[in-house]
């Protein structure tokens, strides 16, 4: 957490340097990196540093050459000679024109800082490279460990400082505290009572390690680990800019969870995400992993300029990689040379050029599946699709063969009734398991139509039904194409609907040729602002929810004249979830109006609008109209297509074979469309020339750059030395064993996850503007350990959680707080407020409501009204929140749909980032809004109610037994004597209050959508609900203690 004030920050730094670094100015030799660089960086480098353009007076203080070389005969810094060093005299000057830093910079050196600078010059003004750029000194680290006689390397390093500062470390925490601490750290969930009992009963010496391993093996481990990584990866479920429409890349989120669960080594984890697509014989999973570089926000705002956004995306992608693996805040180098770290603008754009030729379009199109989009079928799905394709293809071949054998002579109109009238019965399917041939759908969501399968609901007919869902107005508009629909005599439109009982719309409607028939309220786009035109057909109330109902309307009621063509058709609804199935036009049609039995009529009237399902050659022939009639070959070609795909009067087996083919096609489509995909990263086939954008402006191009890495680091090894460097080269460079940055940054982030604050507190910034590590040798020791382990994340977590430091009691006395408020020394155990997701998941877990289903599309749990609506763009498909029902309400928080421009309040209220850019570190604030949420949010209060019902169903227990049961279920420990009294008294008071107002109690037991269990008098359940609400709000409950 960033310190509250600059003042506090400087106090904190001072205290820390006193306590942690032991750097009272004059006691020991000054270390450049520890003591001097922060002062120079903060106060001097902006004008006398790396950025050549901003350098003043040609003086450079970030290198010894710059500092020692005399300017006009005077040394800026002369080692061991204070009097001859102009830097010192300028610092000491009282003349406003002379003094450094100058007054207009608003910077000022403290006495302490001056003393350090003085001592440093006197001791020889030795420079060091910035600490994080220095190689890891494995030998030093290893030998250091040997000299410290404690069992774990970690504790050796920590103890040295603790002892030096005469602090006393606390004893090991009790077992209940330990298991809860471990369970939250590794799984984001509390331990179950059974898990606590098992641990308490295990008296073997390795009980703790065995318990650790159980949680490391839990499938929830990956979910908790991924949660932290997704902040870094800036993962979300919407595009983020302007319309902020839904984006489909949850397969990437699930990949991250899976990668942690199967303990993918972190170097491979890195390579897959940066360049999985470039790995020879890459698996689909490795390609999905490249979603990391597709997680940035994107736009499709009308009028936005593509070049600008191509540039912005590449900046974000390069800066995110540099920050995530190298600990460099590189974003500023897009405009100018980094002022503090050795990163020039040209070097930044060299990294940027690895991402500049991205294949994804600058305008995301406001669709969920912005290319490149990889569909990933499970093995059984793949097999099924292959089988269905074979069936479809066989059916089509058989159909084609039969059609080729049929001749025009076969196109005899079947007679119905009076031969003179030459009519046939017509039954034309617009959609059933798929859209009819040639029908194109256009939805309000801008995404393909959504289909429900029999796993979701009971079908009316076939295997799929169209699913429309929205918090407000939505529609699917069908454009009719190559197979025309002509209104028959007494024509009737019928469609089956099923209204979802838990999500009833306000109204539904069907539109034919612009005229609407509606049930319930009239669905109008954009609320009341679009007015009805008065010609709508009010068909009465909505059909009953929860069952299939057939709606039938005469086409003439839509004002459709008999024998006229219908080009479009739409189903609409206002809110809710509705399934639509088997939509059919029926009646009788006379031959002279029937394009489906009359080739020439079809040919002259076939719509040229919808090109769906028309082979390109045929499309040309249709478009050419009758001019081609002279050519018998062309006519024959078109006729063959007609007989095969259109004609309803073809002879022989054609019609039967066509039905078979259509069924096969629908099955194949259903199987294919059931496969989900994910945004992936790929390069264009030919890389774009990349230029420096001067001052960060996309339209002011400077020198040309090639993919390369900053010179201060180890060199890039190209797989093909003669070729342009690739992202795969970059990925391997990041995790090269000789790269100290990625190792340090990575172990530090895991350390932060476990202990709350990183060894380097600024876990996103390892540059000179970041804080130096509190324990540099420990950081290096861990980095080496991690590398030698083969980047084994589970092993690292086991190591960190096995340390004494992690296991210590977190109790603290005021003196210890004064001395080490942030617990950087770790003389006591880490105590942290739970993160947003952990707080919600905890309530769900202890109440037994949690649905542990893994993965999938983001779910929409309870959300207060008007979170999305007041901000969403009119046409955004995430403007109206449509809450889910049933088990989806109780999924883990990592699966909650995250809309970037209006994130779920349960997340942002507890400091979760909105994922608009990478975030290595969350704040931990403490606000009244959080208190309100934990007390009143239906999600939390329902959990309390359900927990109360569980308590009351413990029939063998009396009040105190139940109170104890409740307390222990939530906190994994028994209440002490005082807490027992407090519980009893709190229960008593709530009982009295509800006893007087049973009607209020009745409301309490109804909160939430889960079924109320009858476990006794409602007053009793209500009183226990309040007690559970109390326990769920305890400070101890929302903390990892």
């Amino acid at each position, binding site marked *: 957490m*960033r310190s509250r004030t600059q003042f506090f920050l400087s106090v904190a730094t001072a205290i820390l340097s006193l306590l942690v670094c032991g750097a009272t100015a004059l006691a020991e030799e000054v270390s450049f990196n520890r003591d001097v660089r922060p002062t120079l960086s903060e106060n001097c480098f902006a004008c006398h540093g790396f950025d050549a353009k901003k350098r003043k007076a040609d003086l450079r203080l970030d290198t010894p050459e710059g500092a020692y070389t005399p300017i006009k005969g005077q040394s800026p810094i002369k080692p061991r000679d204070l009097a001859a060093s102009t830097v010192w005299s300028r610092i000491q000057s009282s003349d406003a024109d002379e003094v450094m830093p100058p007054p207009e910079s608003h910077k000022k050196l403290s006495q302490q800082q001056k003393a350090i600078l003085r001592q440093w010059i006197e001791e020889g003004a030795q420079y060091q490279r910035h600490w994080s750029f220095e190689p890891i000194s494995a030998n030093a680290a290893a030998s250091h460990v040997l000299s410290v006689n404690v069992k774990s390397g970690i504790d050796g390093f920590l103890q040295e400082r603790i002892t030096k500062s005469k602090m006393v470390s606390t004893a090991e925490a009790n077992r209940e505290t330990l298991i809860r601490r471990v369970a939250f750290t590794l799984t984001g969930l509390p331990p179950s009572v059974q898990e606590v009992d098992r641990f308490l009963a295990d008296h073997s010496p390795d009980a703790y390690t065995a318990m650790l391993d159980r949680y490391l093996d839990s499938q929830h481990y990956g979910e908790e680990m991924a949660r932290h990584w997704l902040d870094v990866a800036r993962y979300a479920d919407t595009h983020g800019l302007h319309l902020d429409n839904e984006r489909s890349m949850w397969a990437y989120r699930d990949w991250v969870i899976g990668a942690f669960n199967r303990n993918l080594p972190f170097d491979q984890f890195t390579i897959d995400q940066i360049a999985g697509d470039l790995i020879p014989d890459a698996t689909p999973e490795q390609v999905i992993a490249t979603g990391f570089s597709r997680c940035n926000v994107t*736009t499709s705002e009308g009028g936005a*300029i593509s070049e600008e956004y191509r540039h912005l995306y590449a900046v974000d992608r390069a800066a995110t990689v540099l920050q995530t693996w190298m600990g460099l805040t590189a974003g500023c180098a897009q405009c100018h040379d980094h002022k503090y770290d050795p990163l020039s603008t040209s070097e930044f754009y060299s990294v940027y050029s690895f991402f500049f030729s991205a294949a994804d379009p600058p305008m995301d199109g406001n669709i969920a599946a912005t290319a490149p989009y990889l569909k990933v079928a499970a093995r059984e799905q793949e097999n099924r699709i292959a089988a269905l394709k074979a069936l479809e293809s066989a059916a089509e071949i058989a159909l084609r063969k039969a059609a080729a054998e049929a001749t025009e002579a076969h196109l005899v109109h079947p007679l119905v009734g009076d031969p003179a009238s030459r009519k046939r019965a017509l039954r034309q399917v617009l959609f059933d398991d798929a859209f009819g041939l040639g029908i194109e759908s256009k939805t309000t969501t801008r995404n393909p139509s959504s289909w429900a399968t029999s796993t979701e609901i009971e079908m009316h007919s076939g295997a799929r039904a169209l699913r429309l869902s929205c918090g407000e107005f939505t529609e699917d508009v069908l454009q009719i194409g190559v197979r025309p629909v002509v209104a028959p005599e007494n024509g009737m439109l019928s469609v089956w609907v099923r209204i979802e009982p838990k999500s009833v719309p306000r109204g539904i409607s069907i539109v034919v040729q612009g005229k609407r028939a509606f049930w319930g309220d009239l669905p109008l786009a954009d609320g009341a602002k679009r007015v009805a035109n008065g010609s709508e057909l009010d068909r009465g109330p909505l059909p009953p929810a929860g069952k299939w109902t057939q709606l039938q309307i005469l086409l003439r009621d839509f004002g459709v004249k008999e024998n006229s063509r219908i080009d479009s058709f739409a189903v609409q609804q206002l809110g809710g979830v509705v399934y639509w199935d088997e939509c059919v036009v029926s009646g009788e049609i006379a031959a002279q109006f029937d394009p489906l039995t009359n080739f020439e009529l079809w040919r002259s009237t076939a719509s040229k609008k919808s090109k769906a399902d028309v082979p390109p050659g045929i499309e040309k022939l249709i478009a050419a109209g009758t001019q081609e009639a002279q050519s018998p070959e062309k006519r024959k070609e078109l006729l063959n297509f007609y007989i095969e795909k259109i004609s309803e009067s073809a002879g022989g087996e054609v019609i039967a074979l066509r039905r078979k083919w259509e069924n096969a096609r629908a099955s194949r489509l259903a199987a294919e469309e059931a496969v989900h995909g994910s945004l992936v990263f790929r390069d264009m086939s030919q890389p774009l020339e990349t230029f420096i954008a001067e001052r960060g402006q996309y339209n002011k191009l400077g020198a040309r750059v090639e993919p390369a890495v900053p010179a201060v680091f180890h060199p890039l090894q190209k797989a093909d030395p003669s070729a342009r460097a690739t992202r795969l080269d970059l990925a391997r460079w990041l995790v090269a064993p000789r790269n100290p940055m990625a190792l340090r940054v990575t172990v530090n982030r895991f350390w932060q996850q476990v202990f709350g604050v990183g060894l380097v507190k600024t876990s996103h910034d390892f540059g000179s503007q970041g804080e130096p590590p509190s324990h540099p040798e420990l950081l290096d020791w861990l980095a080496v350990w991690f590398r030698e382990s083969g980047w084994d994340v589970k092993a690292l977590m086991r190591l960190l959680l096995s340390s004494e430091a992690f296991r210590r009691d977190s109790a603290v006395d*005021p003196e210890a707080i004064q001395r080490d408020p942030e617990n950087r020394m770790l003389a006591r155990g880490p105590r942290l407020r739970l993160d947003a997701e952990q707080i919600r998941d905890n309530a769900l877990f202890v109440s037994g409501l949690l649905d542990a289903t893994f993965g999938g599309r983001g779910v929409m749990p309870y959300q207060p009204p008007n979170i999305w609506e007041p*901000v969403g763009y*009119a046409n955004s498909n995430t403007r109206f929140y449509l809450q889910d029902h049933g088990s989806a309400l109780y999924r883990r928080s990592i699966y909650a749909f995250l809309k970037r421009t209006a994130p779920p309040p349960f997340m942002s209220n507890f400091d979760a980032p909105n994922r*608009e850019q990478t975030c290595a570190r969350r704040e931990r604030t*403490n606000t009244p809004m959080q208190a309100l949420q934990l007390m009143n949010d239906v999600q939390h209060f329902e959990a309390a109610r359900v927990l109360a019902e569980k308590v009351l169903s413990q029939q063998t227990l009396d009040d105190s037994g139940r109170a104890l049961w409740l307390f222990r279920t939530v906190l994994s420990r028994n209440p002490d004597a005082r807490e027992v009294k407090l519980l009893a008294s709190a229960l008593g008071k709530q009982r009295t209050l509800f006893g007087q107002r049973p009607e209020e109690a009745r409301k309490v037991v109804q909160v939430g959508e889960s079924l109320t269990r009858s476990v006794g008098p409602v007053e009793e359940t209500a009183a226990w609900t309040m007690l559970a609400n*109390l326990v769920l709000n305890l400070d101890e409950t929302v903390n990892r203690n």
Partner: protein
Amino acid sequence: MSPFDELNLIQTRRQFFRGAGLSLGGVGLGALMCKEAAATAGSKIMHPALDGLPHFAPKAKAVIYLHMNGGPSQLDTWDYKPGLGEWYDKDIPPSVQGGQRLTGMTSKQARFPVAPSIFRFSQHGQCGRWASELVSHTAAHADDIALIKTVHTNAINHDPACTFVMTGREVPGYASLGSWLGYGLGSESENLPAFVVLTPSWKSVGAAQALFSRMWSSGFLPAQFNGVALRSSGDPVLYLRNPDGVSAANRREMLDSLAEFNAHRFSQLGDPSIQARIAQYEMAFRMQSSVPELVDLSGEDTKTLESYGPEVHKSGSFASSALMARRLVERGVRVVQILHRGWDQHGNLPSEIRLQCQDTDQPIGALLTDLKQRGLLDSTLVVWGGEFGRTVYSQGTLTQTNYGRDHHPRNFCMWMAGAGVKGGISIGETDDFSYNITESPVHLNDLNATILHLCGIDHERLTVKFQGLDARLTGVEKQRVLTEVLA
């Protein structure tokens, strides 16, 4: 909250409890906490001002920022161009257009015909300010208003421009103006957040542009400095109401028990954050009564209510939001931001802007009057404007009665009134087409620097380390405080 704040808090609270002859963990702690003494402790926790802030004596204690989202047309409101009538349907001279970049929406247009405003302009106040009939209620305050005709911004599309106007950056991730003010100056209110946001309904029928929560987000500042949305339906503040069936008495009992539990825990662990949490729950409880009181208009006199127009009783209307802004400022809220949508008039501008101004003009005029009558205008800065302006040429078809206008970031009008602002003045001039600035350009960052200045903040000295830089609201370039605006 940093451990230091929490330490601070403990000390404050210790003094309090010592003074009251009580010790921590005593029975009935919670009940005591709801009294004024606890309020003192609570406000300490909420938002103390940064050390050293304000940098100098502030003129404005509060800011009401009226953001007209979508980009209101300066040509039809405040930038009077009487000569344009002769240019009707003639193409804008190339010398004026000057090859400036256009959005993708009009860059392919064959013609750029000038569309003079169809609205009547007249002069207002002692200063003789020209303003269109659309903003006559506001213009009645011309002598209190400093009009800036030459505001310009970097971005040409909504998303980056909206992000820029509020955070000084086009890309997400930075702190908003309101968050900076809350962070720097702290909260004056013991019962309400420092920074409140209202997103009222709007009248135009075209597709309204989006808002983004980043416009009131704390960005890289701690999340407690996020703007708190005051909502027109459901709970006015998120999760404010107790669940159905839970009375204030139930809640009070629960909170008393909670405080005792937590105090007991504190006595064992000594972690100051436990104490902070006790106080936050008490603040939450106080909000449960202070917020309903805030949104209850029954105490307002009829005349005041009428002045805001007929929609003042409609929850979530602009009129009710304007009145709420005054009530919030009265109660010590530091920043109120009203974000009114629907100003993106690419087509049908005349009818659409009329609707928008019907929605906003009378309430804005009433707000200024109301603040003045209560003596609040002297200490309240009111700012009005959008994220950019609109082009003089018509987007789409131009007729005598209808036209549209595309985005125009090169110059647009904003105004300021109230605390420390010199009224009756106009800053800057644009050319005859309101297309280029001819005199005194004012960058949005200059404007933000001025807002901070009026609040007693030197914008160069309110910085936070972010991305390796001393990030500030007004960006890395040199900005100027508009001294000519200062009274």
